């Protein structure tokens, strides 16, 4: 399981995403992008956990 520092590091991607959206201004892509971002976060944060097999079967 990732520790607190790793979780904080991972979640920082949301801020990156926000900066990206503000710069690119392709707001119509935001919902799709955000869904993939959340799924991605879920996959990475659950790596090594009991949830992992269920997440991986999505892909």
């Amino acid at each position, binding site marked *: 399981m990732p520790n607190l520092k790793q979780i904080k590091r991972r979640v920082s991607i949301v801020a990156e995403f926000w900066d990206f959206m503000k710069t*690119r201004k392709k707001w119509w892509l935001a919902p799709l*992008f955000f869904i*993939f971002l959340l799924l991605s976060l879920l996959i990475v944060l659950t790596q090594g956990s009991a949830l992992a097999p269920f997440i991986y079967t999505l*892909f």
Partner: protein
Amino acid sequence: MNILGISCYYHDAAAALVMDGRLVAAAQEERFTRRRHDADFPRHAAEWCLSEGGLQPGDLSHIVFYDKPFVKFERILQTYLATFPMGYRSFMKALPVWMKEKMWIRQAIMQEMAYEGEILFADHHTSHAASAFLVSPFDEAAILTIDGVGEWETATAGYGRGTDLQIDQAIWFPHSLGLLYSAFTYYLGFKVNSAEYKVMGLAPYGEPRFYDLIMKELVSLRDDGSFKLNMRYFTYHYGLTMTGRRFARLFGEPVRSPESALTQFHKDVAASIQKATDTIVVAMARHLQRRTAMRNLCLAGGVALNCVSNSKVLEETDFQKIFVQPAAGDAGGAVGAAFYVQNTVLRNPRSYQMQNAFLGPSFSDDEISAFLTAQGIAHRPLDRQTLLSETARLVGEQKVVGWFQGRMEFGPRALGARSILADARNPKNQSVVNLKIKFRESFRPFAPTVLEERTSEYFDWKDPSPFMLFVATVREDKREIPAVTHVDGSARLQTIARDQHPLYYDLVKEFERQTGCPVIINTSFNQRGEPIVCTPADALNCFLRTGIDHLVIGSFILNKADMSPERVAEAANRTFEPD
């Protein structure tokens, strides 16, 4: 100020370290992991760069990544939306990699490098442009970058002045000269993103009889050098292949199976796409020259490794000098990203010119001797002059020599540090080295190294070409070097000056003294599918595995005849996937 540039996750991962404005180390990850074109995070290369600079991660002021992953993902999403549902399978294959790896560059850098400092991201083509201009000898120059695709751009043009880069024109995905060339690489049965240079080598054997067809049906080229591709013939923007059935119907034959026989048809197709590429690159460069009125050009991106096109630009435009750095492809993006921050973002004056490519690891005689001793191989050091005269004599006696000296090259070409050397005067050496040493296709040409001061005696060429990125015609009265003269009379030229690599220069000079010929074959020290050797162990293994007669490593010369049959047999077990 210490800046580490990183490129990875597509092909040719690399790291480069700039310390106080000087490039002190640069290397591709493949050299350490022994996986050709390794795209994984360059942890070994980065670690080595830091150790070469005597640094810890905390000593770095910045780490710079060579492209912008979110913008790239935006392009991928938009492309799949635009081509839905055709791209569904390809999208589902790409998605997990993006979600688990490619979106997490910042986090990967922090974790892999144990680094908490500033992380920056440069545009892909800005990294390319910076990799050429900011280390070039020019104060101002036009800049042209051409590759497969970066974020959205596939080619960009502009100029550089001092530390400023003004990139103001671009061609966007899916219209891409790099991907057009790769589509033909795929159609000809070669590996995409790996074997494009084989198409270039095959081209002189054919007639460009499909050139008009390509320019009429596939490419719409305008006077300003911009172009569009007819995407009905291609599948790379949504599929798992590069071309579709319509493409095969256009040319009349199916995609060639890898390793099957090459027919005249395939040679003609190669000649045609090479000619089309030359036409497009020249049109882009000509327009750029007229627009900027500049006399110097910096070229970068994977297409800038096409030395035939580079030479056409020099011949057919008003540019008088062209600079192409030796790792013009994605590996060089690591260098460009670091210098972009050093010079353009932070406004530090330029203080470095890339005059040679010897930026990788080196090994002292003591280290080599310790390794050979551990291997139980008898060896004794030779003084410098004996080493040179013995090596030159062996080459002159038609022996094939593995040459391992000093710092490894950065970029895809061996330039005299990790090279296989042979006599260019012997016509048999082309097939001998291709088939018995490199285990590769017999049509592949070899490049010559020539003493810089004698270049124009042997080639229709007068400028230095230290990075083997231009072709020149072998003069009619000097066709005595058949092993490096391609079927069209051209050669992929490397000139060597003494200040670039004194030992290698002195070797060619010694060969000239013994034979009268200032030219030798220089090909990379590896076999087919293997990255160029990095360490003494890599060199010894390649030497034992292949038909190389002698290994000249540091101050030592090893003779294959002295190696035990068991050792040779054991080394032969190591195989590499063909490229």
